[in-house]
C-alpha cells in the first residue's frame, strides 16, 4: 500500500463522507433538527438505485433521481408524522421517533429486498483508471465532482437565496419567523425532504464502493455525526473540510492500523472533540 494510493483513497472517502453528511449539516446546523434514521435512509437510497438498475434495467442516470424522489417522500412522511414534536422543539422525542423510523425502514427494506448483501455496480464504477500503481474508478471521480458541486450550490442557496434565508430565520427563531409570515411547517417539511433527497443521492453515488446490506444503516450514521460535529455544527464549509479530514484519517487508519476498528477510531475522534470543546457544543445546541 503506497502513500499516494492512500491519499487518493482518503480524498475520495472524504468527499463521500461529506456528501453523506450534507443532509445532516442542513438539518442540525441550519434547522436545528436531528434524524437518527439517516443511516437507514442511506441504505434505502442504495437499494432503490440497485433495484431500479438490476430489476427494472433502468440506466444509472434514471435510477439516481428515482432514489432521490423516494428519499424526498420518506423525509416528508417522517417530518409530517412528527411535526408537532418539531414545532415544540422537543428534540429528544424527534430523535427517538427518527430512530423508530430507521428501524421501520430497515424492516421494510429487508422485507422487500431480502437480507443478503448486494453489489451496486454502475457504468462508472466498472471503469478503472491506473496511473502508475495508483488505482481508482470513474465513480470515485464522480463522487468528488458531485460533492463539490452540491456543496457549492448548497452554500450559495443558504447564504444568498430567499429560500436559504427563510430556513435560517426558522432555525434561529421559529416563533419570530412566524411573525415574518413564514410558514414554519412548510420549512420543516422542506428541510426533511431535502435531507431525504441528498442522502439518497449520496447513497447512489457512494454505495457502489462497498457491498450493500439492509443492516448497514446503524453504523453509517456515526460517520455523519462525526462529520457534522467536527465541522462545527451547521457550517457547510466546515462539514466539507471535516469530511475530507475524516476520509484521510480513515484511509490511513484502515491501511496502517486496522480497518475493522475504523468506526471505533472515528468515535474516539468524536469524543475527543466533544470533550475538548463541550462548551462550544452545548452553547450552540442549547438554545433551541
Amino acid at each position: 500500500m503506497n502513500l499516494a494510493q492512500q491519499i487518493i483513497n482518503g480524498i475520495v472517502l472524504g468527499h463521500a463522507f461529506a456528501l453523506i453528511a450534507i443532509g445532516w449539516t442542513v438539518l442540525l446546523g441550519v434547522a436545528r433538527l436531528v434524524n437518527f434514521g439517516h443511516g437507514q435512509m442511506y441504505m434505502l437510497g442504495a437499494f432503490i438505485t440497485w433495484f431500479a438498475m438490476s430489476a427494472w434495467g433502468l440506466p444509472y442516470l434514471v435510477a439516481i433521481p428515482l432514489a432521490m424522489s423516494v428519499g424526498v417522500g420518506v423525509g416528508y412522511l417522517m417530518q409530517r408524522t412528527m411535526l408537532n414534536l418539531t414545532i415544540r422543539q422537543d428534540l429528544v422525542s424527534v430523535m427517538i421517533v427518527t430512530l423508530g423510523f430507521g428501524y421501520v425502514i430497515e424492516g421494510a427494506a429487508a422485507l422487500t429486498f431480502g437480507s443478503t448483501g448486494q453489489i451496486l455496480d454502475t457504468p462508472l464504477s466498472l471503469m478503472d483508471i491506473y496511473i502508475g500503481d495508483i488505482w481508482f474508478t470513474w465513480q470515485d471521480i464522480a463522487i468528488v465532482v458531485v460533492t463539490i458541486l452540491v456543496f457549492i450550490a448548497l452554500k450559495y442557496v443558504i447564504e444568498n437565496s430567499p429560500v436559504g434565508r427563510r430556513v435560517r430565520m426558522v432555525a434561529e427563531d421559529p416563533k419570530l419567523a412566524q411573525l415574518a409570515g413564514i410558514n414554519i411547517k412548510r420549512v420543516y417539511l422542506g428541510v426533511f425532504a431535502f435531507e431525504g433527497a441528498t442522502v439518497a443521492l449520496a447513497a447512489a453515488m457512494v454505495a457502489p464502493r462497498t457491498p450493500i446490506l439492509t443492516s448497514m444503516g446503524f453504523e453509517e450514521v456515526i460517520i455523519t455525526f462525526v462529520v457534522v460535529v467536527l465541522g462545527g455544527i451547521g457550517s457547510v464549509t466546515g462539514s466539507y473540510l471535516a469530511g475530507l479530514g475524516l476520509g484521510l484519517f480513515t484511509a490511513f487508519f484502515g491501511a496502517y492500523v486496522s480497518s475493522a476498528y475504523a468506526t471505533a477510531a472515528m468515535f474516539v475522534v468524536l469524543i475527543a472533540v466533544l470533550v475538548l470543546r463541550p462548551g462550544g457544543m452545548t452553547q450552540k445546541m442549547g438554545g433551541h
Partner: protein
Amino acid sequence: MTGAQSPVLEVRNLTADYNGNRALTIDHLALHEQELLGVVGANGAGKSTLVGAILNWSRGAPRVSGEVILDGEDLSRMDTPSRVKKGLLLIPESQLIFHSMSVAENLAHHASAADAAGRHVYSLDDIYDLFPNLANRRGHLGGQLSGGERQMLGIARALRLAPRVLLLDEPSIGLAPKLVLTVLRTIRQLADNGLTVLLIEQNVKAAVEVVDRMALLERGRVLAEGAAAEMRDDPRIAEAYLGGHAT
C-alpha cells in the same frame, strides 16, 4: 377619526388561557383608519397576551379563542403566518430581530406583491430614509446592535412586510429616556403617514403624548378607553401612572 366608518381591526370576545387560568378577556376593541391606539396597564395586565392573541401567536402556549376581524374579514381561523400575510404585523417585546443575520439580511425578507395585495411595501430606500442609523449599520449583525437600533430594525422589518396594522409590544422597554422619545415619535410619524397602529406601552406618561386614543388594561380586561386627552385626566390613570411619578 373614530366616527361612523367601520374599524380597520376589530376584536370580539377574545380570551386567552394559560393552563386553565384566564389571562385575557376582551369583549370588544376596535382600531380605526390611521389611528394610533395606546394600550397601557401594569405588569401582568395582559398587554402582551392581547397583541399575541390578535395574531394567535405566543412564545408560551395559551389557548386563544375569539374573533379577530381585519377590514371586515374574519381571521379567527387563520394561523399566525396567514394573519401576517393579511397585514397584521407584530413586533414582539424581546427577540424582535434575527441576531445571526446582518441588518441588510433582516430587511431583505419582504412581502411579495401578491401577499401585499395593494398595501404599501416599504422599499429599502424608504427604510433607510426613515432610519438613517440602520443604513450606516447595514453590514452589522443583528446581535451587534444597541437596544434602540434593534427596535428600529424590528419596526423596519415589519414595514417590509406591508403592514395594514402595526402592533408594537413595549418598544420603549429598556431604552434610555431620550431614545424612548425618538422611538415613540417615529411611531407617531408612521401613523401620520397613514398606518394604523396599536402600541403597548408601560410608560404611560410618554405614551399619552403621542397616541390618539388610549385603553387601560387591568387583569386582562379593558377598564377604560377614550381619547388621549380624556384619558390623561381619568383618575384611574392619573392616580396609578401619572400622579406620584412626576419627573
